[in-house]
């Protein structure tokens, strides 16, 4: 029995290793920042998630249109069956 399937791509293990290495490189380049020097880091634009609630709504819609955003599926959300 045949079916008109597209060939699926294979994934490359070295990708992950690359990233861990890059991360380790980053670690070596960090400097010590005193608490009084952290003003810039505390600015709202430096916040990791500047718009948490809008992102929550948007990612729910995105999860329903893509197959892989649901890495946080255990955090709840609907079935996105549409």
């Amino acid at each position: 029995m045949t079916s008109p399937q597209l060939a699926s791509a294979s994934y490359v293990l070295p990708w992950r290793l690359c990233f861990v290495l890059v991360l380790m490189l980053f670690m070596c380049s960090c400097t010590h920042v005193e608490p009084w020097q952290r003003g810039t880091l505390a600015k709202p634009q430096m916040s990791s998630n500047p718009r948490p609630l809008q992102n929550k709504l948007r990612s729910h819609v995105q999860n329903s249109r893509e197959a892989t955003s649901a890495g946080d599926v255990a955090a709840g959300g609907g079935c996105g069956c549409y």
Partner: protein
Amino acid sequence: MAVTNSKEVSLASLTMAAMALPGLMMQPVCADESDTVSFVYEHYQEGERDLAGMSSKFQPIQVDSILGNINFTVADDLKGTLTVTQDTWSGATPVATAPSSAHGNRLTSVHNHVMTGASIDDSGHIHDPEDGEATNPISDVVTGASPYLYSSLKLDAERRPLVTNSEGKVIGGVDTQLMHTLSSASPEVRQQFDLNISRELKDAKVDVGGGFSQEHDFKSLFGHVSGSWDFNHKLTTLSAGLSYAHSNTFALLDHDVVPHVYEPYMLTYERRGDDIYNRTHSSSQLELGEHAPTLKGSRDDWGLNLGATQILNQGALLETSLSFTHSFGYQANPYKAVEVAFIDPLKQKGQAGGNASANYTYDAELVALMEQRPDLRNQGALNLKYIQHIAATDAALHLGYRYFHDTWGIQSHTFDVEWIQPLGKTWTLSPRIRYYSQTQANFYTPYLITHQALYNKVIDAEKGSTSTPFDRSLLPAHYSSDARLSAFGTLSPSIALTKVIAEGTNIELSYEQMRHAGSLKLGGGGEGRYTDFDAYSFNIALNVDLGDSHQDTSSSNHMDHSEHAHQEAHHTQAAPAGVQFDHLLENSGDMMLGYRVMDSHLGGDIQYKGKPSSDHSLINQACYGHPCYVRPTKMDMRMHMLDIMYAPTDWLTLMLMPQFVDMTMDMRLLAESPRTGGMDAIGMAIMHAEHTHTTSGLGDTEVHGLINLFKFNHTKLHMGLGLSAPTANVDAKMRPMMGNDLGFLEYGMQLGSGTWDFKPSLTVTGQYASMAWGAQLSGTKRLEEQNASGYALGDIVQSTLWGSYALNNTLSASVRGLYSKQDAIKGAYNNIHVPISAGDYPQNYGGRFVDAGLGLSANINTGSLAGTRWSLEWLQPVSDHPNGYQLERKGTLVFSWGVHL
């Protein structure tokens, strides 16, 4: 400055080792989180799918979402977050995919056919295999492309589909055009509730949370525990989290689709659900429910999340996380199917059957089977985020990357670039672009071909002729045509604008445009153009700072609102929750934010002139010259309102009031109704009435100006001039059935008035010691003769009188009387409308109504929520005099919340 001392070196290596572990995103520098309340509204809209020139009568997918969130402080080191979300999905969705020659989206519809032995003759008569008698033909109705899942396909020797006309005659070469078969489901409303509590410890934080999500076909319960630890003078943060969700699917299968999808068909018409589906499935079962075949499934999801954040220097930080999810159970979409072309070796008349002159080789029967996905799915994702401060413009550049891989064979990459640019002191502009690419699942296939018959007739000496279904082992174990599992890429540029109004209070607007295309896949090889679509979404949020838990008045010049509100609370008792426009803001420059939700419930009898009506009198009288066939049994209406008030002067307060409305209605057949169904529009509308009707979306938007007329001690008189803008849709329609457009839903299910309305009011309030009182006269005058759908709601006059008593510094109780008079609807629907119930007739609307209200209010003066006001009121119907036949009102619950900014 490089890391020098030995302690820091060992910490750094610990960090490096920790980096090999998974991690969660956590802020190393915690901004002082004060209490906030937020409201967000989002609208998402897709464009039409490519149906190769054919247009579908179905609307593309759209989603309306509202979210309310409150961050509150329980104690010094204990904070909580409560989030309530509601979203409504509506529009056309692909059911399956087939070559265009299968004509999945047809102009004509309605062929009642059977799949296991009966046949349809040329004139559309059905011959049952047993008795051979022809049944009545079904008339065709032309209303636009509708789903047609049972079909035929002609293929060449290489099993490629050939271009055929709608009668199945080969008219061309290989058909390379694939097409989605679209169908439309009723609007779906989903609600989600999340609660999270976090505890701050020295250099650490622990979070515990949970919640649930519910929609009519899916319920989910979830919880999580996570913790984060700061190291290295808080330059490094490590975090770990565990989450779990248990979900149940309860899907009523689409009545338009059921006769055409194999498993529900076999369950419904041949009662063979067990051997066709149930015996081979453990996490889901097909059952014949009261109204429709139902698919029940359950699943469990476990998640582990590990993260690390590292401050690199004064202006940069790096975040990384690794997450694993283990999902087990029913993960398929009950509304999606895969078309399977059955090439029965015994029925080939083409070249495969030795006919040299036939211009095709195989003649296949195309049947839709429910999609099958593996029960097990393990997923892993790696997230990286780099944030760099750009000193030149004081901007921040956010670069994100996410890699995903799972056991379904899907790999994806997400690239995210955002530039957050502050402009001046109060504005921020953030352009952003996101690129996403995924490979297809290893069981994804647009459709399947198999060399076997759909059924095999077996002649048994004892049982006579029986049919056995096809051999499933000849098909792949798992298959899905869901485009979300196909290979594609998306590109979404977006822009966001934030305006700070006061400290911690801001408004955010954002707009995103999205293109989903197979050609956008990284490395090429994505799915064809037929799955491409565009979408846009916009989003508006209001975040309000409620102030710190520590009341520090020395830090700012103006009074912080907790003190301000304390004064207010002492001096003014506000009106019960259900009364609007009851007070002005005291001082020029004041601002106030309020949220109100009104939940009305109707049920019980249908009343006429104050008396309940029997089914018999409803049939004969409630539909004015026509019979009534069904009646509503219960109705629930919820209106969410946001009050944004601003006083430019001390005698004028302006108010903006956007609204969000949702309604549900259940109906039933009237006893001895002259009709219970049928294949024409009225019959289908009657059958449709068995399902719950839902409408949900943005309501009308009101603008009011409240003008102070008279103020003496505590007695105040003011008038209001308001205008209601028709921002709500008034064209909600019944879901089409078998290609029939069933027209508008009844008038009471529309979300707004559809007309510009003038809303004047006159209010007087007074207070003496612990008692307060008030009276209000208000009205609604429609400024147009008819709305876009051809009718106008009746004008309204309301008068209300209330008294309240302060029980203590915080609580007060109120009693109220309310009289309302509304005229009947003028005009009537100007397009297709199939009236089957009293609510379909304009004359039945309006009337005179009296309610009694009982309320409780709390003004919080201390703690983190100081300055907020919480009220609840129950409105009990006392006397109803509807103009015609109306469902009895059972009561309204009003909750309102307000805060001075």
